[in-house]
């Protein structure tokens, strides 16, 4: 069985000549007896939306976890802004400007919107050195409102508890959280999975505006309609390996699906 070959040590560029913001090179990861990743390579450029697709168990989520610092690869390299990086924890990744919006683990239900937006990086003032820093809640709201407005995000008052938001609003808060930090790379795990039609449209528009502002976006999705609507490039994983890298306007749904299922190889063999 032959795989579609993707060069493992050369950059897989979009072809527009800009340097990639993120380069993942031949990363591998084993969990016990399971070889989850066996050579994943991909690039994401500033202002580009890359969709990471593949069947269940293809290694999409594991790949995201490597880039967000939740897991570390056994082998292979990750370059960020041209520098090799060791993403040993989510805090390290966030400091570099990598924000991840997880499917179920994006927000704390018991906190309000503004606390979620700033969780982990609350604005503060030091009243007395050595004592706990005090939050500047009104300042945080002031800082958040123009960013939300610019992205066309409509939310209830920022002191509303996240538990009382709808699925779409929650996803919006999670994305806004990533944007607020002037992140360079935003990763989204199934951003529209639990959403209705209108909410999906709003989140996809938000992703497009993000990219329009120069942010690199890497999103996992099972929904090919969403992928073809917002992605500039489509990277296909199969059995823990990068098997294809399509530029959206040069490919078709059939080609992508064939790469996901592996039937592309059979076609190639028959020819």
């Amino acid at each position, binding site marked *: 069985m032959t795989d579609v070959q993707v060069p493992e040590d050369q950059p897989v560029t979009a072809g527009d000549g800009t340097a990639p913001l993120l380069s993942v090179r031949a990363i591998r990861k084993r969990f016990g007896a399971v070889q989850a990743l066996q050579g994943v390579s991909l690039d994401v450029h500033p202002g580009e939306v890359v969709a990471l697709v593949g069947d269940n168990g293809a290694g999409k989520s594991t790949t995201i976890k490597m880039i967000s610092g939740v897991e570390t690869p056994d082998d292979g390299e990750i370059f960020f802004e041209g520098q090799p990086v060791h993403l040993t924890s989510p805090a390290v990744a966030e400091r570099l400007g990598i924000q991840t919006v997880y499917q179920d*683990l994006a927000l704390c239900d018991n906190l309000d919107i503004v606390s979620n937006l700033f969780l*982990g990086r609350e604005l503060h003032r030091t009243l007395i050195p050595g004592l706990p820093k005090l939050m500047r809640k009104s300042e945080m709201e002031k800082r958040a409102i123009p960013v939300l407005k610019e992205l066309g995000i409509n939310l209830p008052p920022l002191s509303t508890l996240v538990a009382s938001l709808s699925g779409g609003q929650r996803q919006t808060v999670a994305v806004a959280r990533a944007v607020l930090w002037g992140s360079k790379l935003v990763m989204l795990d199934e951003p529209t999975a639990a959403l209705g039609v209108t909410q999906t449209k709003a989140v996809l528009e938000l992703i497009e505006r993000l990219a329009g502002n120069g942010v690199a976006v890497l999103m996992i999705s099972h929904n090919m309609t969403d992928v073809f609507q917002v992605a500039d490039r489509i990277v296909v994983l199969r059995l823990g390996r990068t098997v294809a890298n399509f530029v959206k306007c040069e490919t078709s749904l059939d080609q992508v699906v064939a790469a996901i299922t592996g039937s592309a190889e059979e076609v190639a063999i028959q020819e």
Partner: protein
Amino acid sequence: MANVLRRYHLGPLIGFLLLFIILSIVSPQFLTFGNLRNVALQMSVNTLLAVGMTFVILTSGIDLSVGSTLALSSAIAAGLMVGHTPIWLAVVIALVVGLLAGLLNGIFIAYARLAPFIVTLGTMTLFRGMTEIYTQGTPIFNIPTGFSWLGTAQLAGIPVPVILTVLILVAAWIILHRSIPGRRIYAVGGNEQVAYLAGVRVKKYLLLVYMVSGVLAAVAGLVLTSRLGSAEPTAGTGYELDAITAVVLGGTSLFGGEGTLVGTLIGAAILGVIDNGLNILNVNSFWQDAVRGAIILLAILLDRKKVTR
């Protein structure tokens, strides 16, 4: 409606006011300055423990060792003072003992990832045993009279333990409700994994809450020892349960992430008023526990959404 109830602690507050009004009607002694001052004084030890317990329970933890930590730190302080160590130094050492006790709990819970219930059940027995070894099972008397100020003196008619408790409550309130560590404690309690993924150093905050609980147990121990003029090896036995009761009565969720210090204060006040009321009404001591338990169950029933979620 539910939000309004929660935000202004209406459930616990109504319960407290109800008890307060009933006692004022049935006993002429209850609503006097002297008696209310007495309630506040008797509440102070439990309130101090309950403040620390609130920090812990907000992270969905529990600290069963506070009663033993109270006994250990006060026994060590008393022993040192009897051995002519300066009072201030003995107090500092007692606070450090409390801090280390909390640190030990925190290390097991945050770093060894053991269940808080089991860890603090173990340290509860460990610290009690250490207290018994240190005291050889006998109370420590003859504590220097200078130390009695903390537990027995009054400033402008208000007992020093009450003033101390109020100051600590205010400081704890600022930390929990207005500071960054406080916000992160809520985040850790709300969803530990989300907090971690947001870059919050979860272990640090877990360690922190058990240290707060340990130090406040030591403070409570010093107050109690000063009031009684002796350190008993059995001091504080069962106090952890009173502290947990106050926190839960105050509407804090045992699942973490939800609750406030004002609620805890109301919870401690409910317990204080019950105990005081049963005493001034001369309720048979065999009946006191039963009545107390029934009132607690009733109060939690009125607020049951919090506990079961």
